[in-house]
Structures are given as C-alpha cells and as structure tokens.
C-alpha cells in the first residue's frame, strides 16, 4: 500500500453519551439507551422504544454553534465532527488540506416532514427554510462550511453501511494525495419517516433490542453521529496520540434481496474476507469484532453464519454496541468505527447488552461485560445494509 492511513482521533454523540468519554462510561456502567420517545413526535411513541440523544434542538444548536432551525442531523454531525477534530491536536483546520466525507440516509428529512404536512394541504404553503436542506449533501455542506472545510466535501448514502463507506473513500482520498486529513463518518437524526419505514418492515422491537440473542425480535432505532479523523503518514507526528491504523477495508454486495440478507450472509462474508486480505491478516489475528448486530432475526443469523464460515474455529470476542446505541443507520458505521479504533488504543472490549440465550445458528456468544487493558491489536467493524451493501473495516495497532 502506497501510504498508511492513521486514525488521529474521533468523536461521537449518540443516545448513550453526548461525547466519546460519556459513551465509554455508559459501556462501563452497562447503561443502555433505549427508552420512550421524548424528542421525536410520532404516533408510535408508546409502542417502540428508541435511543435518542438527550437534548432538544435548541440545546444541540447552542453546542454546535449553528442555528436551531436547521436539521438535527446537521447539529449532531457538527458536534461529533468537532470533537473528532479537537481530539487530534492538529490545531487550525485551515492549515491543512482537509476533506469531509459524511454519510447520512435521509438528509434533512426531520424538517421536510414538517414542511410536507403544510405543503400537502396547499402546494404554495410550508416554509421553504424547512426544505432547503432536504438533500443529504446539504447536511454535509452545512457542517463543512461551519468547520471551514473546502478541499474535498462529499456525502455517501448506502443505507446502514453508509458511515463505513465514508471511511473507505476518505482513506482512498489520502492514498491518492487528494487531501492530507479527512474527517469521515456519518450522521442521522431520528425521523418519523425512518421510524415508520422500519415499522412497515415489522423489524422494530417493542422492548430493548437483543442482538445475537436467540430470543431477538428486532432492532431499536437510534440517532447520533460519529467521525474518525483519517491522517496521512507524514502528518502522524503532529497528532497528539495516534489511535491506530486503518489497515483494511472492503465493500461487497449481497445481491440477494432489496432489504434482507442472504441466509448464509454471502455479502457479509465477502466484505470481511476482503478487509482481511487488504490488511494482510489471518482471521485468527482479529482480536475483536464490532458486529453489525442489529437484533433482527435475519441480520444476526446471516452475520453469525458468515463469521462462522470465515473464523471457525477461532472465534474472537464479538459484540454489538447497537444493544446500547440503537441502530443509528447512516451514523452507525461512523460511530462504531470510533469505538473500534479506540478499542485498539485502549484495549477495550465492549459489552453486548441484553444477552441471555445463545443463538442456535452459531456456536459463539457475544461478550457481555466491559473490560479494558486487553490485548487488542486488530479490530474488525461490520456494517451491512439495505440494497445488499456490506462493508467491513479493520483497525490495527501502529
């Protein structure tokens, strides 16, 4: 590989913490996030628990230094991206060639929903300011502009794997010398659109989700944003404490069904295998897998079987942090990349909450307690989504 890509820092805001240290505390204390909807207004409030960021838009806006009327998705993005940047110690953004590659799935839909209610009554009504940032790319640009990033700005949307693909593209930008630093990850706020959409698929759990548990009934939706800062080799010296390297990544398509995973998880398998090949690692060298682990029957069994095919008989510790954060969709790949990269630096193993019974499909069980100081040299992070999109990332010790 022409040049190594380092993880220089990261930031997260999600339902279990409004910054990365707070999220780690939540893991330590087994404090999961699923609760009754408080900020999202939906007819399903009493039915489906969600994992919300515990702040209203005005509070988030004040923290983000952005106007309160813009999409919550942009506010979350700005807060996490800023934390990620600050954690690197690189100083002023304008001193570097910086890219911002952000993923999301529904752009400014939270505001479009409000607009549309008025618009449907009369096509001339509805405040245009609510729909002007509907596009996914607008969310990225609101944040890029406020951070002062101009060198390379783009947005990826591949459903639930979006955030992971942002890291891949960001790494390629660095390897091709387009930029020196990339803030890469994803963001998504809860919207009625996605909540109702997942409800039509009948894969929302009315209780806290139980990923990789035999009794799992579905997922809990969450919201948040997560970004890592990718840094090229030659800038590594300027980083406060480089976390690890992004040593491998791959993206494959399941090509089985529009939403469901193939029973044997062929796309999952190919993504994990491809990432291992790029990193030059053998399966038994992986010390931890941060699972996609949504908690649906279909995902967890496909993912589990794909892991079995690739890793048997050497199963590394695995867990789904979605049992804490909920499924944050376009943000999940970014948030879990931050958790995974930090695991390498700190030797963390994250717990899988709500686990009770081993799945009959697979011979392994997830980690159920938080621990630190482990030997964690190589971590794999999985993100799979609608449209067959499957992505795996590998983070390795420097």
């Amino acid at each position, binding site marked *: 590989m022409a040049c190594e890509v380092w993880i220089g820092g990261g930031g997260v805001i999600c339902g279990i913490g409004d910054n990365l240290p707070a999220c780690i505390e939540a893991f330590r204390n087994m404090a999961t996030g699923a609760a009754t909807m408080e900020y999202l207004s939906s007819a399903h409030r009493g039915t489906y628990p969600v994992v919300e960021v515990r702040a209203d838009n005005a509070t988030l806006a004040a923290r983000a230094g952005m106007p309160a009327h813009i999409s919550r998705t942009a506010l979350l993005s700005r807060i996490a991206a800023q934390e990620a940047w600050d954690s690197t110690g690189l100083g002023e953004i304008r001193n570097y060639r910086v890219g911002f590659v952000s993923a999301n799935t529904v752009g400014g839909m939270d505001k479009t929903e409000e607009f549309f209610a008025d618009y449907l009554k009369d096509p001339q009504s509805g405040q245009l300011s609510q729909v002007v940032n509907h596009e996914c790319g607008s969310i990225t640009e609101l944040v890029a502009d406020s951070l002062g990033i101009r060198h390379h700005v783009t947005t990826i949307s591949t459903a639930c794997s979006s955030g992971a693909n942002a890291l891949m593209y960001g790494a390629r930008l660095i390897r091709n010398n387009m930029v020196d630093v990339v803030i890469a990850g994803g963001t998504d706020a809860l919207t009625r659109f996605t909540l109702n959409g997942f409800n*039509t*698929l009948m894969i929302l759990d009315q209780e806290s989700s139980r990923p990789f548990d035999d009794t799992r009934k579905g997922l809990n939706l969450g919201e948040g944003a997560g970004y890592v800062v990718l840094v090229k080799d030659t800038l590594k010296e300027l980083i406060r404490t480089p976390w690890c390297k992004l040593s491998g990544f791959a993206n494959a398509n399941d090509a089985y*069904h529009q*939403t469901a995973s193939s029973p044997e998880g062929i796309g999952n398998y190919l993504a994990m295998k491809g990432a291992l090949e790029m990193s030059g690692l053998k399966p038994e060298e992986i010390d931890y897998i941060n699972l996609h682990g949504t908690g649906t029957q279909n995902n967890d069994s496909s993912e589990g079987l794909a892991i079995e095919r690739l890793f048997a008989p050497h199963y590394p510790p695995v867990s789904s942090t979605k049992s804490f954060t909920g499924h944050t969709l376009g943000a999940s790949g970014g948030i879990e990349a931050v958790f995974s990269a930090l695991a390498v630096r700190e030797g963390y193993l994250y717990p899988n909450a709500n686990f009770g019974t081993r799945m009959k499909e697979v011979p392994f069980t997830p980690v159920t307690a938080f621990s630190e100081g482990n030997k964690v040299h190589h971590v794999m992070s999985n993100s799979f989504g609608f449209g067959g999109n499957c992505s795996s990332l590998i983070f390795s010790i420097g």
Partner: protein
Amino acid sequence: MEKLMAALKAQIVEQLNLQEVKPEEIGDDQPLFKEGLGLDSIDALELIVLLQQNYNIRIANPEQGPEIFRSVRTMAEFITAHQTKQ
C-alpha cells in the same frame, strides 16, 4: 367464499401492482409465492397491510405470513375464520 376470493384477487393485483396479471387468472389454490405467482417477502408485508386495511385483521407476527398467504383460498379461509371469531 367465492365472492371473497374474487375480491381478494382484485385487491392483490392492485396492491402489488401486478402488471399483466388479470385477477381472474389467479387460481384459487395457486401458490402466491415463489414459483406460483412469484411473490416475495416484501409482498407478504404488503399483504399484511391489505388484510388490515380491507378486513380489519391485524397480524402482529410476520412469521405467520407464509401460512396465511399460501394461496387465495388460504387467505380467504383465514379471513372468514377471523371474522366469525369477532
């Protein structure tokens, strides 16, 4: 029962936008999924809503789908059984 099945066929064609399929061409016992009419799991979810909308029957567990939606006849039987129960 015949009337119900005829109505169901029309509703299925409409809800699932089965272009080039006429309701009367669907056999009462023809399998709806796979090699029969070629429906898939997304259609099964659509049919669950169809039952709710037109017959006020709620199916909470999508795993019941394959059994109920085997054919137009099994659908009609399920509707009849459910409606008499109420």
